[in-house]
Structures are given as structure tokens and as C-alpha cells.
């Protein structure tokens, strides 16, 4: 794949994101697939942060280890990130009179790094512009560096400040200054491809928020916690358009309880949190198990334990999602991997929650929640996704109900009828104690066995209907999802979540196949066993220390992997050489 990478670094609050997002949008509109990755520290100010853009005319889903261009706001960036440049890379910095240390100078010479100093302060002074305009200035330098016309940039700026004429003019001046400034060889971008222009540039959190709205979710009860907060903020910001009820509750227990109350009343509602908040929700998740109340909980992972590394990424909460919450009850644990399925899987999550009357945990990761993806807008608008509410009874059906239908232990697949408070029908008690068919107390052993069996039967039903893991393989030179599981495999890579992006970006021939798990509990392993049997080598890739999916797989089917690539440093990129 031909791609280039631009990394923007600086202190938090200096405008790193703003420059990154502006460049990304411009490039996508120019016909490129863009992937944007944010890294920052868990402090409000002064922490080092970066925004890396990967740009290609083919699908790109991850960031490379090295960049072609490094744009830095301060001298920390020069020191910390110089070595992130490839040979022949460009360093664009803004630190007046910067003197490189000996080692750095050696590196620059040895790697033919081009160093460009941008006298931002001077220029802004000359234009009598506020510091914030530095962002436009820098963007325009980058813009000209990659050989794009300044008109494109001006168009975007106009979109944003159209109504403020003065500001617009000043912005244009900055752009002109920036474009003229640099007198060096331009970077050669691959040929643009129009197909990207109509696509969307969106983060995982935004896509997930839209996916929830699309799925008929009408309320979000949350509590801020990185990296779940962007979802909360996004849905709050668009509540005027979505008419969704967005409530920042006083804590996570409240958030999950309000969600359950709202679900019980009959709407679709959800909550979102990270690991620590999820812990607090687990008692309520267990409640949903016995009261058979649908629930959707987004668990946005970051490195733990404890407060951990709030702004970094991880896949360390899988086993928790599968086993937390006391007692035994059916549940679904599923994971998104990018913006595309962050959108589409929300419909699945709500559908399974309602069809099986269970709690559904949707895993995401900081890497997905805060990264910028280029995704197909049509996918989003397609009508593959439909609202399914399972055995929810209303209308004429209500007339036939008896109270004891609510928890009828003989219901097929363990899924009994559900109807909403307010319905003109016999009433029942949604019960957190063990109960009989109409929700009354029943402490007999026979009843306990019957009701537990009723509920656990749902796991069998789920295993039947949940989709198989996806097999990605190069077929006729295109990397696609194969529905046909036959054919030769040299290396079978198995993983889940955001790893999919790095792995797919690294597959370039037919020898490597990737099996991607979206549904993690209950876990289907038939296909895996089949594929593993014929693969020469099986490799498990996970962003945690224990190889948690591997543990579940072993538990389920006994399979052990030939190799495990485990990474748990808060960073995403899996060294590709380890996979192939």
C-alpha cells in the first residue's frame, strides 16, 4: 500500500488536534482515505500529545510506526519525536533558535532529515493575529508541503467561519503566508481516488453515537470517564437534533440503574463507561440477569488496573465483561473494531438485548473511540439493520397474557413474553429475588432449578443465532471477508477489537488469514477449530497481558495457539513482523 504519514505533536491544549482534524478533512475531501490516531496524556495541560494521520488512496486503518512529516509545536516534540521520522522525512518546528544536540544532529544527517523552522510567532505578530490562528498557519504549511492547493484549505475555513468576515480574512492571510513560506521539495502523495470523497470521516465514538440513534436508542445515562466520555459528549452535543434524553448521572451506579429503569419502561436506553465504572455497574448487570431486563452497556477500555492509564488504549477487560456480576446469568459480550462497526453493531446490541432479555456489553477501546476513520457513508444509510424487539407483546397480544407468562420456565429458548408497565394486561413483578413465573417469591429448590435453567437456556439460543467470527483473506488480490472457510491457510491470525485494523493493514498476500471475533461471549469456536486444524501456524494477537481471548478459546474448545503476540503498554501498534 502506498501511504504517507504526518505526525503533529505538542503540549495538550496547543492545537495539535485542531491541526490534525483540519488536515484530515481536507485530505479526505481531496480523495484520500485518512486514518487519524490521537495520543495524549491524562492531564489537562502540558502533557505531550500527538495526532498522527495516515494518508493513502487505498483503505488505511492504522498508523505506521514512523512518519514522513513531523510537525511540532514545542521543543519537547523535537526531542521526543525526532526519531519517529523515516529516512528523508521532514521536521517542521516552531522553536526559535533551536540548537540540536549532538546525537540528534547525527540522526538528522544520517537520515537526511529536512528541518524546516516556521517562525509562527513572528508571522502572527506581523498579521496582528491571535495565537489561535497559528493552527491555520501550520496547517497551510503542511498543506503546501504535500502539494495541495491553498484553495481547498480556504474552502474549509470558509465553511467554518463563513459568517465572521474579519476572521475569515485573517485566516486567508495566514494561509497565504503559510503557503508561500516553504521553499522545499514537495512530498509526493499517491494519486487521489474519488471514491473517498463521498465517505465519512468520523471517530469510533461518533459512529457509535449515531449507531445508537439509528437503532432507536432514546436515552443515554452516563458518567464521564475516558475513553467513554467522547460518546457522552457527542450525544449530548447533538441532542437538539436527535431529541434524545442525555443525562449525566451522579455516578455509574445511577447511570446503569436509570438505564435499566428506562429499558424496563420500554424505551431503548444505554450507558457507557470505562473499566472502573463498569465494576460499579456489575451488580446491576447481575440484576438484569435475573429480572430479565434488556440492557446495553458500552465498556470503553483503557489500561488498568485501578485508574491506570486513562488516555491510553487496552483490551484488558474481556474476562471481566464475561464473568463479572455475581451469580450465573446469560449475557452477550461483543466488541467493535472501527467506526464502521461502531455504528452498525449498536443495532445488534439492542436487538440481542431485547430479543433475549439480557444485558449486552459492547466493548470498545480508546483506540477506536478516539481515532478518526474514513468509512463508507452508504453502509451507514443501508437498510441491512432492522429493529427487532423479540417477544415484546403489545396491541391485541396483550389480551391473551397471563401474569405467569412473564417468567414462564417453559418458554422456548428460555425467552418468555415481556410487556410494558402501563399495558392493559395482567401485571407481574420484575423480580431480583429468585421468583416463579409471575415474579412472586419462590424459594423452593425445584423452582430455583427451573428458573436458572430457563435463563441459562438463552446461551444456547444465542450461540445458534450469533454470527460466526469473520474470516478475512486476500482473494483475487482483494482483502475481503470470506464466507467460504475452505482453502489453504499458512498463518491463521486470531484477534478482536481494534487489532483488526493493524492486522488487516499488514496482510498483503494469500498466505495469511485473519479471523476476527466480534462476538466474544458466548464464544463460537467451531470455525476456528476447523481453520486452526489446517493452518501451518496459529497466532493469537491481543492487547492484554494474559491473552484473554486465548483463555476463553482454550476453555471452550481446548485449542492452544502456536504463538501469542501480547502487548499491554497502552499503545496500539502490534509489531507486524511478529504476526507474519
Amino acid at each position, binding site marked *: 500500500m502506498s501511504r504517507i504519514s504526518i505526525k503533529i505533536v505538542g503540549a495538550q491544549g496547543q492545537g495539535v488536534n485542531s491541526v490534525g482534524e483540519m488536515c484530515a478533512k481536507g485530505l479526505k475531501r481531496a480523495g484520500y482515505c485518512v486514518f487519524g490516531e490521537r495520543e495524549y496524556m491524562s492531564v489537562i495541560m502540558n502533557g505531550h500529545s500527538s495526532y498522527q494521520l495516515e494518508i493513502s488512496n487505498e483503505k488505511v486503518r492504522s498508523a505506521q510506526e514512523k512518519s514522513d512529516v513531523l510537525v511540532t509545536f514545542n521543543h519537547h516534540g523535537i526531542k521526543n519525536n525526532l526519531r519517529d521520522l523515516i529516512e528523508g522525512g521532514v521536521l517542521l518546528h516552531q522553536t526559535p533558535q533551536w540548537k540540536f544536540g549532538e546525537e540528534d544532529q547525527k540522526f538528522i544527517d544520517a537520515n537526511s532529515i529536512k528541518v524546516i523552522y516556521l517562525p509562527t510567532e513572528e508571522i502572527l505578530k506581523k498579521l496582528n493575529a491571535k495565537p489561535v490562528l497559528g493552527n491555520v498557519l501550520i496547517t497551510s504549511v503542511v498543506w503546501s508541503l504535500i502539494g495541495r492547493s491553498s484553495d481547498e484549505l480556504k474552502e474549509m475555513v470558509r465553511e467554518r467561519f463563513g459568517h465572521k468576515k474579519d476572521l475569515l480574512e485573517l485566516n486567508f492571510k495566514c494561509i497565504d503566508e503559510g503557503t508561500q513560506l516553504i521553499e522545499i521539495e514537495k512530498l509526493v502523495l499517491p494519486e487521489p481516488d474519488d471514491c473517498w470523497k463521498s465517505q465519512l470521516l468520523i471517530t469510533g465514538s461518533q459512529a457509535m453515537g449515531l449507531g445508537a440513534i439509528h437503532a432507536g436508542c432514546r436515552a443515554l445515562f452516563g458518567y464521564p470517564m475516558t475513553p467513554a466520555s467522547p460518546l457522552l459528549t457527542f450525544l449530548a452535543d447533538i441532542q437538539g437534533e436527535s431529541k434524545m434524553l442525555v443525562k449525566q448521572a451522579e455516578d455509574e451506579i*445511577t447511570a446503569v440503574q436509570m438505564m435499566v*429503569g*428506562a429499558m424496563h419502561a420500554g424505551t*431503548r436506553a444505554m450507558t457507557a463507561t470505562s473499566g472502573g465504572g463498569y465494576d460499579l455497574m456489575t451488580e*446491576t448487570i447481575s440484576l438484569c440477569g435475573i429480572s430479565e431486563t434488556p440492557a446495553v452497556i458500552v465498556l470503553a477500555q483503557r489500561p488498568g488496573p485501578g485508574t491506570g492509564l486513562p488516555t491510553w488504549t487496552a483490551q484488558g477487560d474481556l474476562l471481566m465483561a464475561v464473568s463479572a456480576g455475581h451469580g450465573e446469568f446469560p449475557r452477550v459480550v461483543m466488541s467493535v473494531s472501527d467506526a464502521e462497526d461502531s455504528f452498525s453493531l449498536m443495532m445488534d446490541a439492542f436487538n440481542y438485548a431485547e430479543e433475549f432479555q439480557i444485558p449486552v456489553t459492547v466493548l470498545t477501546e480508546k483506540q477506536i473511540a478516539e481515532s478518526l476513520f474514513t468509512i463508507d457513508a452508504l453502509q451507514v444509510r443501508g437498510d441491512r439493520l*432492522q429493529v427487532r424487539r423479540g417477544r415484546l407483546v403489545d396491541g391485541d397480544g396483550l389480551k391473551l397474557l397471563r401474569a405467569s407468562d412473564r417468567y414462564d420456565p417453559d418458554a422456548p429458548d428460555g425467552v418468555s413474553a415481556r410487556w410494558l408497565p*402501563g*399495558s392493559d394486561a395482567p401485571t407481574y413483578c*420484575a423480580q431480583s429475588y429468585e421468583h416463579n413465573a409471575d415474579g412472586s417469591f419462590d424459594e423452593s429448590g425445584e423452582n430455583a432449578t427451573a428458573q436458572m435453567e430457563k435463563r441459562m437456556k438463552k446461551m444456547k439460543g444465542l450461540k445458534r443465532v450469533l454470527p460466526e467470527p469473520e474470516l478475512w483473506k486476500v482473494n483475487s488480490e482483494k482483502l475481503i471477508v470470506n464466507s467460504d472457510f475452505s482453502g489453504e491457510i499458512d498463518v491463521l491470525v486470531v484477534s478482536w477489537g481494534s487489532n483488526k485494523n493493524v492486522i488487516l493493514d499488514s496482510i498483503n498476500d494469500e498466505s495469511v488469514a485473519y479471523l476476527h471475533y466480534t462476538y466474544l461471549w458466548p464464544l463460537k469456536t467451531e470455525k476456528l477449530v476447523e481453520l486452526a486444524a489446517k493452518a501451518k501456524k496459529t497466532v493469537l494477537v491481543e492487547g492484554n497481558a494474559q491473552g484473554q481471548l486465548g483463555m476463553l478459546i482454550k476453555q471452550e474448545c481446548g485449542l492452544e495457539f502456536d504463538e501469542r503476540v501480547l502487548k499491554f503498554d497502552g499503545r496500539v501498534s502490534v509489531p507486524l513482523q511478529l504476526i507474519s
Partner: protein
Amino acid sequence: MNQPKENAGLSMKDYNHNNLCTWCDGCGNYGILTAIKRALIELELAPHQVLICFDVGCHGNMSDTLVGYRFHGLHGRVISLAAGAALANPDVPVIAFGGDGACFSEGVGHLVHAVRSNYNMTFILHNNANYGLTTGQASALTPHGEKMNTAPHGTVEELLNSMDFVFSLNPSFVARGTSGNIKQLTDIIKAGINHQGFSYIDVLQACPTYNKFATHEYLLGKCYEVETSDFETARKAAVDTSEKIATGVLYQDKTRSTFLDQLEARKGIDTRLVDEVRKVDVSALLAKFS
């Protein structure tokens, strides 16, 4: 309320459940049970028209003893559970029952923030000043120095004055009743359900098994009824229980908007969240991402 509605003609038997009642003899919960049934009947609300949520505790066992849509949830969490339901479907009145252990110890935060948030729901506190179901431990509402289970030498924590506490949160409806005065309690509950906003109803409940300090007789002797008055007067009357205990609807602010009514995003919308579950076209929202 004098117009017969479609549900007119409701009687106690519509609300009676044939499950066994398991409270001790003389338990104040019997009185509260009667009062809630009466209140609902007098409000002409049929069992299928209400949602009654229960915390876990002796009081929570009421879930087994009456008909109606019920949710018996977790210990300490009933207020938030009920609030979620009330927001999702304001057409179904939501009543939450909780104990003093549940709502002033385990889950006091939910109470604090529900009062502030003024969700439209009714909260009825079974204030028996102890943890009945777990056999008589102290709650925050147990007087200092009482010898209780796990505190055989007497509690050392200060008594929490529930009224001062709730009034500090700028409530829109505060009432106090006792399990021994069913008629008054019925009226209080009716007023609470009719109130638009969070109705806090503190019911002094006899628990002959574990509460020997505020018995049925003691409460009957000490309580007197007051009329609703302004905030400061009501607060003063409510807080000071040294001589006598003020009961009735102590304070009500009918002008305050509920949580839902204040939400910009929901203004001018007639449907309820429960009516809006369908696949929603998000095309219009995609513009900013292209």
C-alpha cells in the same frame, strides 16, 4: 378527582395479591401497604396503570403483596431505577419504596441527586430507623447510642436528621406520615403522586421486632398534623422533633419544573421515549462528517 374515570369502581381486591404476607405482627408495613392501595384506588389508578418500584428490605417484600406493575430491584438503588422508568414513560406514575438503610446508607447519593434533579416520581421512605430484614442493624436514622446488631455497645455515629438533610437539597415536595395513621398517609401519598416533581414522603414506620425506641404508641403520641407552609417555616417544623413531630404535606412548590420539562432537547415533543423506539434515519446528522 371527583369525576369517575374509566377505572372507577376499583376496590381493594383489585390490588390484593394472594401471596402470603411475611411481616411480623404489628409491623408498620401493613399500614403503609393499606395506604398505598387506598391512595391508588382513590386516584382511580388501576393496577396496570402504575409502576411500583421496591428496594430490598422488609419493606421491599411488599412487592409480593399487591397487584400492579412492579420492579423489585437491588438494595439501595430503587430511586435511580424508578427515575429511569419515570423519564422513559411519564404517562405511568412511578412510585418508589425504600428503607432507611437502603436510601440513607447504601444509596444516599441517589436520594441526594434525585431531589436536586426533581424527577417526576414519588418516593416513600419506610423509616423504621433500622435494617429490619437483616435483623436489626443501625442505619443512619437510628438514634446515637442505641444498642443494635453489630453495635452491641451502642452506635457511635451521629443520627442523621432526614428532614434537615432533604431540605438542604431544595426539594419541591416534602411530607411526613406514620404507618399508624393510614388515613393521613393515604392523603399524603395521593398528594405526592399528584405533585409534578420529586415527592419525598418520610413515613415513620413501627418495627416492633427491632425498633424499641420509636414504637407505634410513641409515634402516635408525638405526631401532630400541620398544613403546608412556606419553605423556611416548613423546614423548621420538620427538623425539630424534640417535642412533637410534624406530619402531613409539609412543603410543596408547585411552580418548579421537573427534570424532563426543563430539557431543551425534549421541549415541544409530545411523544414519550417509550413511543420512539424505531429505526431512525441519521442521514441529516452525517453532514458534518463529510
